[in-house]
């Protein structure tokens, strides 16, 4: 073997070895494989591990405390998972293992927690209880991931869509029109009620004001009565009531006497009334005769020539009187002797 060939061999060997070591180391580091592993091992069993794979994180109280070391199918439909926990990682009392999706992007993790801290989900607790009883192997359960939740949500959405379809079928155009009409009627009724209520409210305001005023009057009356009562009480105390009573008695006696006089007066008035009726009847008879032209007054009233004669006699008398004033000697001849 020549020297050049040896150099080639060495260079190639070094290159191959270096790259191989680097690649293997990188793979081991990325896989989080620990050589000379001294971690604590925990075993859990459950029916289905979901998306959990070897290398996924194991967390205790939210702190990364290890990783999934191995997953194997077990007896009777169980899956046995080996967890490699960091040294001195604290295990909670009555531990159970939950396998769950940790994000929407496909990350899964395993949580070791106390059975008391399990979510209050009946199916989950049943699954944990069913996984108990395998010695040191911890009971485990799988929480549904987002895909399963989405599937359930999809079914719910389908049901809602079906109900919506049924409502759409039941609620046709006629129903819509009737509904609109009903709503309109309700609106009118509401307006009327509003108007009525407003009016009644105004009436009630008035009544209220009246009542308030009445109450005030009553209050004032009560105060007045109270005042009167006080005065009465005071008057009673000073003997004024007795004086009033005696005065009233005297007044009533005078009233009694006045009543007797009124009674007498009324008798006289009745008598005078009879005389008046009689006088009126006589006058009526006289007037009747006068209207008929009987007697002197009748003629005087009804005969115009008598009036004219009387009038001319008066005129002549005035003329005579005027002539007497103007020429008294013509008529009066005064002689003393």
């Amino acid at each position, binding site marked *: 073997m020549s020297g050049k060939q040896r150099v080639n*061999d060495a260079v*190639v060997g070094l290159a191959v070895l270096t790259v191989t070591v680097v*690649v293997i180391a990188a793979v081991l580091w990325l896989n989080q494989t620990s050589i000379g592993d001294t971690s604590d091992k925990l075993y859990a069993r459950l029916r289905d591990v979901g998306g959990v794979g070897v290398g996924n994180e194991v967390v205790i109280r939210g702190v990364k405390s290890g990783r999934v070391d191995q997953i194997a199918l077990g007896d009777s439909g169980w899956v046995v998972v080996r967890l490699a926990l960091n040294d001195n990682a604290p295990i909670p009392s009555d531990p159970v293992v939950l396998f769950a999706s940790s994000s929407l992007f496909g990350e899964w993790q395993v949580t070791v927690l106390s059975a008391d801290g399990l979510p209050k989900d009946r199916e989950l607790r049943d699954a944990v209880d069913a996984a108990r009883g395998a010695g040191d192997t911890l009971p485990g359960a799988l929480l549904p991931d987002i895909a399963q939740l989405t599937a359930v949500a999809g079914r719910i959405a389908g049901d809602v869509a079906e109900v919506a379809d049924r409502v759409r079928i039941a609620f046709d155009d006629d129903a819509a029109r009737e509904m609109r009409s009903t709503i309109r009627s309700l609106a009118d009724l509401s307006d009327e009620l509003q108007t009525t209520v407003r009016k009644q409210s105004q009436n009630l305001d008035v009544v209220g004001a009246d009542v308030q005023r009445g109450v005030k009057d009553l209050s004032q009356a009560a105060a007045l009565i109270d005042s009167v009562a006080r005065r009465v009480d005071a008057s009673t105390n000073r003997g004024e009531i007795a004086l009033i009573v005696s005065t009233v008695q005297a007044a009533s006696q005078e009233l009694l006497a006045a009543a007797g006089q009124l009674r007498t007066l009324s008798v006289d008035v009745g008598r005078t009334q009879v005389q008046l009726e009689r006088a009126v009847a006589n006058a009526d008879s006289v007037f009747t005769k006068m209207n008929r032209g009987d007697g002197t007054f009748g003629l005087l009233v009804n005969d115009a020539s008598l009036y004219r004669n009387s009038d001319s006699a008066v005129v002549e008398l005035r003329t005579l009187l005027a002539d007497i004033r103007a020429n008294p000697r013509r008529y009066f001849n005064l002689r003393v002797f």
Partner: protein
Amino acid sequence: MTAPAKVSLLARLGGWVRAGFEGIGRGARFVRETLRAVPDTATWWPHASMHARVLGVDSIPIGIFIALFTGIVLAMLADYSVGDLVPPYFVGTLVQKTITMELAPVLTGLALAGRVGANIAAEIGTMKVTEQVDALETLAYDPYAYLVVPRVLAVTLMFPVVVGAAMVVGVISGWLAALWLVDVSTVQFFKGVRLFFTEFDVRYGLVKSASFGTAVSLIGCYAGLDARGGAQGVGGAATRAVVLSAVMILVLDAFWALVWLTGRTLQ
């Protein structure tokens, strides 16, 4: 179209088909002769390390150079693509997956197809046109054992080494780019790298690159041994080797994806 023209067209079509099958047959015969020569270790073993160094070790800087810039670009491209829609650690996931499974093998393979394929084709082609191959046969050397097998084995072995180095450098450069250019922390980046990392990713890339090495070296040797004439024939052989190698790398890339990734889902 006249009857003679129709006959001529059919004859040409038949000639193409026959040439195609002849090429496949010659290639199959070439592979068979190579396999037959593998047991002749006494002939090829002394030369294997020299070819491994020339074709493999000396190609590592090229692979590293390509991976260096590919990792940087991928980190920035991943950040640009995912934006605020997904957590930033997915930059690490995208860089790791893309580098180890696709870009490191394919880009390095294409680059080495030019370097290694052309080198092999030109070297053997020159020997062929200068009748050195005939001289070897005269001296009772099996040209396949002497020329082809050590090159094919060396390149098949060294391609994964070059690609492995490119994978490591690509992820590291992607990490540095994410750290300095994209503002993704180291913890976040490697959380993303580890999130969906499986050793299958590396195995897939390395096996693929080994197949690329085999294809490139076989095509280079075949093109060299098939060289005719003088320097022009050697140049044509080198060109054919590069073109065929590049095409074969892409075909094999699709082939491995169909074989290994169909029906396989990431957990």
